[in-house]
């Protein structure tokens, strides 16, 4: 079985035709995990017995002649901030080292019903706060293409696992680019859906007005298939909306000639590295060759996006992480003389440096005397940025940019300068502020073989066309 060219469709056919059982396929990927995880550290923990039970269920269905669901036997890894009942969910934090999920996230229920197999839980920056996976309390994941480079983050474990053939697909979460940027850095496809497209019930909250769950895979078709399964209204998540879920897979292959692609003028002076610019230019040529029209558009307030994003994300994080008090779940600090000291000891021992920094900044921008100047101000600028995008989408169907201004950076290169790290999110955060879908598709690599990604963004709930364009781009061939 050639892992590089395997797809969810092939797996299903293998099982249906009796060429391989779901359990055998599962074993192949578990072997790969055993072989590679020590070096790549894509997975924080995995439980072969759990995966085998799921695989045996698929094999029983096949033996009984029942029709197999869409994702039957698809080996997946799940970012370790999404709950799978009975498995630990650490969020890459010491605080939740021994936390065992008491229920399934809605996305997990849906994937399980669709036949997916969960091989293990993927590494992430602690509470998804970071752009390199270096903020994990359990050590960084490394880039499978070159182990002294970062895989991106915060869904670095998910992207690295797919890139290293340790799984065929993954779930990640994206608050400011945390699916798209690691997908770009690892040379896979990753999509952040529209805010409210996918239920977040069972996702550990970071920035509640920004967080979305989304798929990563080797190809656009599998991303589309998984997204179709996990999308839709969920009564248990009040922020999920009752909007019809189209058949994303059926939409692939529709004509794209004449579609208008917007190139934000302001993005062209955003410190894009030479090699990324070269690859993106070849990528844009591919869009032109496919018959797309390129139009320059203005996003006048986009330069404020990073500042806006970090004020809002940190404020929401400080509020969401107030729940870790060492009482109902999570670790408890050893100071036991009174309640306040217990809280302090718990949070001191449980949280890492970046998480503390964000809680501090978030608490500051929400505090009396500063709320209007920072938090409210950022929310107003968010309105301006949203209006910029609405105006741009009056003129064009999509916006295209690099996913990240640089190729993967070296481990440790940006860990001493948090602001520098934040600035690497420049092209991805706007989609979260505005709530629109965005996808990263491989677009060549550096001369050293480090992957580069191109990002396509569309309007709210237009995943269908974004996926179709991404698919056409993917099919148009790899640039060197």
């Amino acid at each position, binding site marked *: 079985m050639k892992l590089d060219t395997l797809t969810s469709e092939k797996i299903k056919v293998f099982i249906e035709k009796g060429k391989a059982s779901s359990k055998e396929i599962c074993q192949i990927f578990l072997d790969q995990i055993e072989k590679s995880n020590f070096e790549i550290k894509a997975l924080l923990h995995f439980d072969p017995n759990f995966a085998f039970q799921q695989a045996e269920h698929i094999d029983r269905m096949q033996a009984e002649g029942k029709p197999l669901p869409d994702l039957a036997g698809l080996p997946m890894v799940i970012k370790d901030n999404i709950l799978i009942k009975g498995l630990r969910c650490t969020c890459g934090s010491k605080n939740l080292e*021994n936390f*065992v999920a*008491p229920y399934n996230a809605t996305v997990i229920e849906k994937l399980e019903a669709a036949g997916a197999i969960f091989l293990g839980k993927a590494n992430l920056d602690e509470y998804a706060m970071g752009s390199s996976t270096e903020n994990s309390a359990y050590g960084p994941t490394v880039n499978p293409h070159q182990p002294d480079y970062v895989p991106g983050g915060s869904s670095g474990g998910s992207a690295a696992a797919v890139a290293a053939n340790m799984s065929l697909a993954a779930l990640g979460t994206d608050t400011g680019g945390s699916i798209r940027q690691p997908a770009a850095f690892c040379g896979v496809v990753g999509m952040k859906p*529209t*805010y*409210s497209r996918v239920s977040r019930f069972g996702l550990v909250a970071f920035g509640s*007005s920004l967080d979305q769950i989304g798929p990563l895979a080797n190809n656009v078709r599998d991303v589309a298939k998984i997204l179709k399964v996990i999308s839709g*209204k969920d*009564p248990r998540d009040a*922020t999920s*909306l*009752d909007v019809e879920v189209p058949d994303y897979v059926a939409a692939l292959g529709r004509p794209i000639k004449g579609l208008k692609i917007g190139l934000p003028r302001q993005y062209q002076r955003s410190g894009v590295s030479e090699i990324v610019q070269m690859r993106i230019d070849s990528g844009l040529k591919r869009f032109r060759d496919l018959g797309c029209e390129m139009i320059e558009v203005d996003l006048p307030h986009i330069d*404020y996006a*990073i*500042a*806006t994003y*970090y004020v809002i994300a940190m404020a929401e994080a*400080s509020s969401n992480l*107030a729940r870790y*008090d*060492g*009482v*109902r*779940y*999570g670790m*408890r600090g050893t100071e036991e*003389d*009174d*309640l*306040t*000291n*217990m809280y*302090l000891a718990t*949070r*001191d021992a449980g*949280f890492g440096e970046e998480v503390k*920094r964000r*809680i*501090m*900044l978030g*608490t*500051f*921008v929400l*505090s009396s005397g500063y709320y209007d*100047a*920072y938090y*409210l*101000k*950022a*929310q*107003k*600028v*968010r*309105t*301006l940025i*949203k209006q910029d995008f609405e105006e741009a989408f009056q003129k064009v169907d999509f916006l295209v940019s690099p996913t990240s201004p640089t190729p993967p950076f070296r481990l440790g290169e940006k860990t001493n300068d*948090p*602001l520098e790290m934040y600035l690497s999110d420049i092209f991805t955060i706007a989609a979260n*502020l505005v*709530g629109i879908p965005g996808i990263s598709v491989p677009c060549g690599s550096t001369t050293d073989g480090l992957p580069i990604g191109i990002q396509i963004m569309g309007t709210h709930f237009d995943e269908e066309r974004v996926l179709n364009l991404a698919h056409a781009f993917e099919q148009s061939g790899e640039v060197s």
Partner: protein
Amino acid sequence: MKINLAEVDHIAKLANLSFTEEEKQKFIGPLNSILEYVDQLNKLDTRGIEPTEQVVHTSKKNYSWNSDQVKSTFTQKQALDNGPEVGSGHFKVPKVISEK
């Protein structure tokens, strides 16, 4: 703006976080460079602009109400399973009311 060590103490107290003097010294540099960076927002005139709290929820048309039904939830055991210290069907915490 820049914050000083006294303000760091105040925010830490609000956030239920504690830092040693050494940690504070290490923390305050990046904290201030980030605050300086986000200060650029104040260059923008936002008079008359409504704040955005939720991006997609501008219309009510896709909201739906859940029916008011009691559904099964955690048992007492499930609720307590992840508790760091439990006993007699309760979460245990240190003394809340002091004698002082």
